[in-house]
């Protein structure tokens, strides 16, 4: 495991989350509706950021599976707010030049007659910088 201090501090700063408040109960992962899609689960995001083990997260598809439904935020007994950690790692990944997870060229393939604008706008905001 590689401890990347710089990235760790960056993610703590962006997210405003203190991962050391976690008591390892796993309620975030118990409540997560995207759990089965994820390689790293919400409690692992918190734990790996606490350990400074950031690279695997940056390269993981798990970043794009979080629904931002905030269930982990509301149900965490320690007020850790795991979804904010996931968001901070995702932003760190896509803020790099050329690292957008979605581009305008992807749209025509996705769009259908009944696709609401909200879907595209939201996906763009989550996946693109």
């Amino acid at each position: 495991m590689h401890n990347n201090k710089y990235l760790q501090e960056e993610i703590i700063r962006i997210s405003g989350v203190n991962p050391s408040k976690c008591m390892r109960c796993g309620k975030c992962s118990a409540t997560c509706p995207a759990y089965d899609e994820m390689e790293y689960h919400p409690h692992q995001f918190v734990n790996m950021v606490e350990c400074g083990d950031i690279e695997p997260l940056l390269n993981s598809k798990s970043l794009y599976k979080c629904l931002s439904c905030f269930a982990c935020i509301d149900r965490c007994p320690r007020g850790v707010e795991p979804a904010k950690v996931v968001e901070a790692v995702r932003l760190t990944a896509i803020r790099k030049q050329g690292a957008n997870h979605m581009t305008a060229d992807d749209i025509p393939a996705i769009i259908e007659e009944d696709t609401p604008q909200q879907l595209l706008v939201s996906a763009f905001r989550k996946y693109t910088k």
Partner: protein
Amino acid sequence: MKVSYFPGCTLKNKAKDLDMYAYKSAEALGVTLEEIENWQCCGGVFTTANDEVATKLSSVRALKYAGEKEQPLVTVCSACHNVIKQTNYAMQTNSQFADKVNRYMAADGTYNGETQVYHYLEMLRDLVGFDTLKEKVVNTLKGKKIAAYYGCLLLRPNSVMRMDDPENPTIMEDFIRALGADAVVYAKRNECCGGYISVESPESAKRNSNAIIENAKAAGAEMIITACPLCKYNLVKNGADIPVVYFTELLAEALGVKEDTNA
């Protein structure tokens, strides 16, 4: 009563019903929705990162506009509501963030979260009153078994949204009852439909949506109401075999203004 109104992108396009019936019903209840001039899209989702400023400016503009008119800001789409309320909260509680935003908007003067934000449902509960609403119902929906689908954005994060009990909410059920129908309570009503994930993993959205529909049906629902165009899209797209309608449509029907709109 006059309130500022933020419709949002989808309401002017794929979710025209949500918007139209919101207007008509509000009128029938003696509330005038004054659409914010030159409103811009809220962005659909709130970015929780502390260092994101630009993505929140459209919300701040809307909030400021309502503030200058000394009106509460009403939204009807769950997503717009979530983004605007979270932005307003950040403006109230995070002075560093508020300073940055105010520097971006220096020409227009400062804003520090003074505007009150109401979801249309909150407006019905807190400003109109469900009792008043009950009296205004002309077509009672008696006997209809309706399940409220809150999704995630209306209620969470609770520390900011403060709409209702985030785990056992009642505002939509009270709304359904005020219209004379039976409210079907089911535990998955505050679980996520999948949201924007349907562009990334449609299967994930399908699994989530199906589980919600099944849970509502098992509890006896004949219809699901929602406030969110994306929730409606996901539920319908993923094979809901009971009607999924916007709550404003149901409201318009009960208030007897639905036909008007179609005419």
